[in-house]
C-alpha cells in the first residue's frame, strides 16, 4: 500500500482527575467538576481533531511500563475495568476498546527491523493501563476509532534520558514508516504530563480548586519554556533540552512519549497549537496539537 500519513500529533496527558471531573457514565466516581482549564483544552482539541478525517489513533502511555523491550496490544479487542492504583477514589472506568491489529503489527515489525526489542501482547486477561484509557477517553469519549497501544520502555531508568531519546527516535520513525505503508490516516498521541512533582496530600473534596496550583516556581518556568518551544516550532531545541527538563522538572517525559511523538512527526518546524495548560495535584499538563494535515495543505 502506501499513501498513509499522520494527520495530527498531540501531547494529550492523562490525569484521571479530568475523567473524574467530567463524570462520564463509564467512570464510577462522580464529581462536581474541577480542572476546567484542562477540560476546556480537551474540548478544543476534540473540536480540532473532528475537522480531520482519520482511521486510527496511536497512543503511547507512560503507565504501561515495560523494562524488557517495547510492547504492543496484540488482540482485536480488550474489555475490562481500570482502577487507578494511585487515585482509586477518582478513577474506576469500564472500557471496551478495539485495536487496529494490522497497524500494530506493522509498527511492531518496523521497530524490530530498526533493531529494537519489540513484542506483541496477546494475553486476553491483560488490563489496559489507565494512562491509555484516560487519554483515549479525553480525546474521543465515544471510542469511535480503533487504537494502536504502545508500551513505554523505561530505558531512561536503565540508562539515561539520552539513550531513551535515541530509542524513542527509532520507535517514532518506525511508527511513521508503518503508518505511511498502511495507507491509513492516523492521529498520534503522546500521553504524558510536563513537570511532574505531585502534592502528597489531597483535599477532602478532590475537585476543590482552591488547592490547585503548580508545586513550585521552577516547575512553572520549565513548563512555560517547553511550551514556548512547542508553539514556536522548535522541536529540535526541545529535544536538546529534554535531558535537563526531564531531570529537573521530574517530568513525565521520562517515559519517552513526547520524544517518540516528535520523531513520528519528523521533527516539526511549524508551530504547534496550545489548547490548554493547567495543573493537576501540582503537576503541569499541556494539551498541544501539531496539525500536520494543515501544514501539508499549506505547503501543497
Amino acid at each position, binding site marked *: 500500500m502506501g499513501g498513509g500519513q499522520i494527520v495530527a500529533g498531540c501531547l494529550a496527558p492523562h490525569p484521571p482527575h479530568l475523567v473524574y471531573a467530567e463524570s462520564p457514565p463509564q467512570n464510577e466516581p462522580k464529581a462536581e467538576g474541577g480542572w476546567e482549564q484542562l477540560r476546556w483544552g480537551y474540548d478544543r482539541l476534540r473540536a480540532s481533531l473532528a475537522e480531520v478525517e482519520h482511521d486510527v489513533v496511536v497512543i503511547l502511555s507512560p503507565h504501561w511500563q*515495560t523494562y524488557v523491550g517495547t510492547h504492543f496490544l496484540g488482540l482485536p479487542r480488550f474489555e475490562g475495568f481500570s482502577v487507578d492504583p494511585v487515585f482509586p477514589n477518582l478513577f474506576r472506568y469500564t472500557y471496551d476498546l478495539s485495536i487496529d491489529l494490522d497497524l500494530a503489527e506493522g509498527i511492531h515489525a518496523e521497530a524490530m527491523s530498526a533493531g529494537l526489542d519489540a513484542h506483541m501482547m496477546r494475553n486476553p486477561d491483560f488490563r489496559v493501563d489507565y494512562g491509555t484509557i484516560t487519554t483515549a477517553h479525553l480525546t474521543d469519549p465515544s471510542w469511535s476509532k480503533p487504537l494502536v497501544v504502545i508500551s513505554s520502555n523505561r530505558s531512561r531508568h536503565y540508562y539515561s534520558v539520552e539513550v531513551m531519546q535515541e530509542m524513542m527516535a527509532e520507535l517514532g520513525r518506525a511508527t511513521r514508516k508503518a503508518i505511511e505503508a498502511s495507507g491509513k490516516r492516523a492521529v498520534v498521541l503522546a500521553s504524558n504530563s510536563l513537570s511532574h512533582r505531585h502534592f502528597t*496530600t489531597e483535599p477532602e473534596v478532590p475537585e476543590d480548586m482552591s488547592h490547585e496550583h503548580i508545586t513550585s516556581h521552577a516547575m512553572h518556568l520549565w513548563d512555560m519554556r517547553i511550551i514556548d518551544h512547542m508553539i514556536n516550532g522548535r522541536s529540535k531545541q526541545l529535544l536538546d533540552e529534554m535531558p535537563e527538563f526531564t531531570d529537573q522538572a521530574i517530568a513525565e517525559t521520562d517515559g519517552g512519549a513526547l520524544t517518540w511523538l516528535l520523531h513520528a512527526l519528523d521533527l516539526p518546524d511549524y508551530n504547534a497549537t496550545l489548547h490548554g495548560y493547567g495543573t493537576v*495535584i501540582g503537576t503541569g499538563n499541556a494539551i498541544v496539537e501539531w496539525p500536520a494535515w494543515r501544514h501539508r495543505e499549506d505547503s501543497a
Partner: protein
Amino acid sequence: MTVVASFLVPVHPHPLLAPEANEGYGRLRAAFEEAAARIEASGADLIIVYSTTWPSIIGHQIQADPNPVWNLVDHDFHDLGTMHYDFQIDAEFAHAWRDAAEQRGLTARTVNYHGFPIDVGSVVSLSLLNRNNRIPAAIVSSNVYANRAETTVLAKSCIDAAQAAGKKVAVVAAMSLSNRMFTRRIEPEDDRIHSLKDDEWNSKILQFLGDGRLEDVGQLSRTIHNQIRVQKVVAFKPMWFLSAMNDHRNDLTGEVLAYEALHGAGGAVVHLDPASNGKGDKEYDEEDVEVFGGDRNVLDTESDHAEDGTTAPQAPASSPGSGPALWDPVEGEDAVNTDTAPKPVGAYPHARRVGDMLYLSGVGPRQPGTNAIPGGPIHDEAGQPLDYDIKAQTQAVVTNVERVLKEAGGSLEDVVDVTSFLVDMDRDFAGYNEVWAETLGKVGPTRTTLAIRALPTPIAVEMKVVAHLPK
C-alpha cells in the same frame, strides 16, 4: 512478641507461573514453599506485605477490601500467563493501621474498591506464602516520596496497631536485590544475574542478612540503591520498613533460603527469625524516629514553618491551634525527658526518678512533634465546643505514658498508681473506662478518677502516673 517472622521475597512472576522453566526459578519456588511452612509454624495470625511494586503518592495506602479477586497479567511477562488471585484481607486491621499511622503524623488511607489492581509483588508473595489463604493479610504501598524517617514511622504505626489487636505478625518485604533486568528477552536457560558487580553486591547483602544484621542493611540502603538499583520509582526502602518492624535489631537469626536470577535481577528468599543469634550489635549511624515530622511537605505552601527553619507538617484537622506556650522539659539529675512525648506546657520534666520510683508529670493526649490531639480538640480557638473522641484521646494518653516509661527503662507493666482527670465525667467516663480496661486495667494499678473544670490545652483527659521501675 508482635513480629514472629520476617521474610524478603522477589517480585517477579516466574516462581509462581513458570517454576519449571529453569532450575533457579524452581529453587525459588521451593524456597517460597519453605517460607510458607515457616509462617505456618510461627503461629502468625496476620501477614503484612510491604511491596515495592505498589507505589503511592498520597501518603500510604493500605488494602482494605476483605476479599480482593482478580486476574493479573504482568506488564512485561504477559506471555507467562495470568495470575488469578482471591485473597483474604484483614480489613479491620487495615483501618486500625491507618488510624495508628495518622496518630504518628503520617498521611494514610485505606483502599477498598472492587477491581483495585493489586501489584505483582503482593500477588506473587501472597499466592506462594499463604497458599490455602488461611492467614489474613494486610498490604501497604511504598510511597515514592517517603524517606527513611517516614518509612520507619510507618512500620512503628503497624506495630502499634498489631500490638493493640494482639496480633502475631509475619512481615514480608516484596523486593528485588539488584533490580537490573536484561533489556531484551532472553531464554530461561540463559538467565543469570545481569552483571558481576550486581552479583557481588547481592552476595554482600545476603551475607549481612544471613548474619541477622538487618539494621546494618537498612543503614546501607541508600548506598545499595545507588550501586545496584535501576532508579525506578521506588528506592531500596523495604529494608527500612523491615528493620523498624524488628526494632532496628542486628542480632536476628537469618537464613538465605534461595538466591537466583530473574531475567537478570537478583531474587532472594530470606527468613529473619526474631530469636537472637547471640552476636551482633547495634551500630547506629542514623537516629531512630518516633513520629513523622513532615519532611515530605517541603513543597506544600500551606504548611507552617517552625522556628528552626525546617518545614512543619500541615496542621492536622485536630490541631489544638493556639494554646499555652510549649516548653522544653526541665533537665535535672533525676529528670527523665524524651522527644517521643509531647512538650510540657510549663517548666517541669516529663518524669522524675526517686530510687526505683518514677513520678510522671500529668500526661495528656497531645502528639509529640505535631502537637495534634488524637480524637480532636474539645473546643476551637474561639472556645466553641467541638465533637471529640474520648477513646482516641485516652488511648493517646496511655501511649504517651508508655513513651515516658520506656525512656526511663520501664514499661506500662510498672505502673502502680494513676490519678485521672476528666473534664466531662458524664459524657466521657464510659469511653475512658473502656480504653482503661484494655490497657492499664490489664496491668492493675490503683486508680482515682476526678472531674475537673478544665485542662491547660483543649483536651478531655489527663493522667498523673506513679511507677515502680524494675531493678
